[in-house]
């Protein structure tokens, strides 16, 4: 009795699968066949002066390798042709990954294992680097999204930032009647959580404006991109200020001559600051995870350009010196 779901535009896929298993591993199978064919040809082919890029098979394999590189690099273009109806980007990525892996084998066979200190081997090395960075990319694509989903548990970074701002406000309000010392300390700790100058204004000035909050997180993100995987970021190190603020507060708690009301306030303040710091840590983690999802491309893409340059040099040189 159910109504058919026919009448859909063609590009819709019924089930939902990730790019690795796109269309029942169509590209994986294709790449595998390509590899097998190349190995068979290589084994079968016995040139007089041993296998090399100079034999007819070498040229053929080199040609295939070149075509693959062009196709792989074209992903950068196809990715931004949003109106294109030439397959889906998911299909392209799937092909990219499997053909990229096949490329290693094909290029190696092409070279006939003749490596040395020359422009040819430079091209080969660059290619391997691109591929390795690509493999790293696959690993993070496979792992981090789930980690992010677990971290977020249904919430969003915007909601956290909103909550953070509220907690900051609350902390300030609690600190207000507690004398200039405490107040200054809280203001200081709030200021330190933000990066560079002007950010505080960004945060407060456009509180209701989600977009500028995103700009804020973009700013954080950019900053973090640079620092990623290096030492803990210095300009944005909540734990340093956390520690000292909490210590300071605890000192206040212990310092005797406080009325019960003040004590209660301090306890509340500590609680709020504790919660805020936990939130800051979580936001940082979220930003860092997102940065790690993208940062490897900063290696993958420039290396691609270098590879193309080296390849051109390789091809030109073999034509001049054979």
């Amino acid at each position: 009795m159910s109504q058919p779901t026919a009448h859909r535009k063609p590009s819709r896929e019924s089930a939902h699968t990730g790019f690795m298993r796109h269309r029942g591993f169509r590209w994986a199978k294709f790449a595998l066949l390509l590899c097998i064919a190349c190995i068979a040809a290589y084994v079968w082919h016995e040139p007089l002066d041993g296998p090399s890029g100079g034999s007819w098979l070498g040229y053929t394999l080199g040609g295939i390798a070149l075509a693959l590189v062009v196709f792989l690099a074209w992903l950068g273009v196809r990715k931004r042709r949003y109106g294109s109806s030439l397959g889906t980007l998911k299909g392209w990525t799937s092909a990219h990954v499997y053909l990229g892996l096949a490329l290693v084998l094909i290029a190696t066979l092409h070279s006939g294992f003749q490596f040395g200190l020359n422009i040819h081997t430079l091209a080969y090395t660059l290619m391997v680097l691109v591929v390795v960075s690509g493999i790293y990319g696959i690993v993070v694509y496979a792992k981090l999204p789930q980690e992010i989903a677990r971290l977020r548990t249904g919430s969003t970074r915007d909601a956290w930032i909103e909550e953070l701002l509220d907690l900051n406000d609350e902390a300030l309000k609690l600190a207000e009647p507690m004398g200039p010392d405490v107040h200054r300390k809280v203001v200081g700790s709030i200021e330190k959580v933000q990066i560079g100058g002007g950010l505080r204004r960004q945060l407060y000035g456009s509180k209701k404006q989600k977009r500028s909050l995103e700009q804020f997180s973009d700013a954080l993100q950019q900053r973090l991109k640079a620092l990623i995987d290096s030492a803990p970021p210095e300009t944005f190190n909540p734990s340093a200020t956390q520690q000292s603020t909490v210590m300071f507060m605890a000192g206040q708690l212990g310092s005797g001559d406080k009325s019960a009301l003040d004590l209660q306030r301090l306890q509340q303040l500590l609680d709020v600051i504790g919660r805020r710091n936990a939130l800051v840590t979580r936001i940082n983690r979220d930003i860092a995870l997102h940065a790690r999802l993208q940062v490897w491309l900063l290696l993958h893409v420039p290396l691609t350009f270098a590879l193309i340059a080296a390849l051109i040099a390789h091809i030109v040189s073999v034509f001049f010196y054979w």
Partner: protein
Amino acid sequence: MSSVYALAIVGSGPAGLAAAARAAELGLSHVLIEAEPHLSHTIHRYQKGKHVMAEPAALPLRASVPFAAGQREVILTAWDRSAAKLKIHIRHRAEVIAITGAQGRFTLKLSNGEAINAEHVVLAIGLQGNPRKLGCEGEDSGLVQYQLDDPAEYRNETIVIVGAGDAAIENALALSTQNRVTLVNRRDDFDRAREGNRDAVLKAIEQGRLRVVYNAGVASVAMTAAQRGVITLSTPQGAAPIDCQRIIARLGATPPRAFVESCGIVFPSKDPNAVPAVSDRYESNVPGLYVIGALAGFPLIKQAMNQGWEVVEFIVGRSPEPADAPLLASKFERLPGYRSVPATIAQIQSGIPVLAPLTPLQLREFLLDSALRTPRAGEVIFSRNDYSDSFFSILAGDVFIAPNPDDVSELIPLAAGQFFGEMSLISGRRRSATVLAGEGCVLIETPRRSMNKLIASVAAVKRVLDETFLTRAIQSKLAPGLSADELQEVVASASVQRFKAGEVLFKAGDVGDGLHLIRKGSVTVAQQIAGKEMVLAYVPAGQYVGEMALLTGAARSATVKAAIATETIKLEVAPFLGLLDKHPALRDQLGNTLKSRAAANASAPQSDSQQHGIVQFLMQQGLGEATDVLLIDEGLCVGCDHCEKACADTHGGISRLDRDAGASFAQLHVPTSCRHCEHPHCMKDCPPDAIRRAPNGEVFITDACIGCGNCEKNCPYGVIQMGTVSEKPPSLMSWLLFGGTEPGARAEKALVKAKQQSGKQAVKCDMCKDLSGGPACVRACPTGAAIRVSPEQFIQITQGAD
């Protein structure tokens, strides 16, 4: 006042102003009565600098005051100037609170106690209603205002805001950044407001940015000096005076209906969308009392102005050809044997029974909105599974309905005078059959909104459509081959039942007393398994639940709940069994159908509680009324925002989806993006009827949008934005070679700027209906995280990725 005007016009909007201008031009003794100190309060209230549009473009303007698309200020100034030049007699700050008497001597009572007498009255008060006043001493003093245009204008003032609805909260929050604001709430909660506003105001109160007085009414207002005064609240603890500089009362508006009814004008139904029935001379059931403009159901400025001009012509005894006559003529010309517009209208009214109860004006409006089609014999009018929602009446010739996709030779003929297409109109779902044109076929195709307006306004139309829907639904789902006569008894015993979201249709173990055919909305079917409730199925409109009751009479085996507001047709067991007794072949056939359905249910993969949770979550996100929705698998999404970039790049620089926003559950994320609802809320109040549904189901906004912002407010999922699209997307080649703007780069700056400017229109997802290859968001996702699904696939989705 003892003098009697020939004509009193109430309301100086485009309709009333145009009427007064024509009266002045003709030298008729008249008075234009306006509650506000300026002309055209509705237009006056538009946002500053708004670009006012002159839709429908094809309709010529016929009025003594100018109007063309342009800035609000320009239009208002031109109107003021014309009013002065024509010496229109205007009474400002005069609210009419009662109209009594009869043609020749009406008495209009004003709120200040004065009375005005007139022979004829034109009611042009629009639909905005009047703001509710404080209802106490001083409510009209200079201290109190009932509207707030620009919160940024006020600084360092002490302001009291009265009210607890969305408007009051939004004003209070906006003002509290620069002023000391106290909110006065008659109750002790903010439950009337939207969730977002409620949370925001409670937070602001908690943080001390706002003061609030709960359980308080306003006892009096008194000025103490210029822009200074005291508002006295009555609270359970006694009277509480507050010094303030400004009082803003946001108590909502009283819809004009009660006032209009008190003048003796009859509304055809209780439906809040109903408009008073008027003759083709705009005269109501009270002779001499005319109704024009938005109040009469014509929601655009140009229509209102034309009617203002025409109504005065009618009153002075002339009968000008209506301004829309050329439009109708051009529509009718293609008809075989066309003679004149009135002749064709008469032919239509007598030839199509369902249209007979319409007033001439309603019929005209209906025909203006409709298209006349003369398909060749054999041409497909619509196909099974199309998502179109228009309504067809057959003026001549016949059509053939092909309900059975497996046997296209099975054809049901429909003759001239009958109609079709009501199924999708009512259920909001795909066409259930293909319809082919016969010989000499002439059809009137009417868009959904015009039909809904008729259903709301003409009870007879509603009844006929409901009955036909019922008969045809039973014919197509349960009793194929039986005629309407044979089904009469079953149809007569059937009833339409309404359920709110979450309400139970029936529970497992209940006595099976009938079958529910879902007419509108959708339901979930759940069973108790190992002590936990598990959702087995999602059943959309057009299908039925509880069918076993008809055959076995056994108790219900599952619990069925409405996923959203749902209407079902309930068929009682007894009359249906009677029918089966008379038609044993039908009994066998039905038995087989139901058995195979039961078998299919039993072999469906057993669900777990996780899945139940997901279904629950999806329903909460409004997917129960969705036809196609964007979902993101968080386990695959790498946050590259390619989906948004693709959307922006292919849609004038504004992304219509917000990936990061929206709720998630069990790694399934529902981004802020259009659900393409079965009955789109956004369509509800669109003055130019600019929101349409395309044959594949895409709900989209046409260029006719006038930027009024109603749809933005009406969409419960917050997916419509107001913005200006840019024509030229950034070029990929020039970005690659020279840098600059990357294709798909966020155009938020443009959006924010557009918000402040005026030429904005509503923008939303159109599911890339104009792109070959389908939705760009999904095609641009490198990992396959973004998917679009239809309701039929929900259960499949919840059963895991592969």
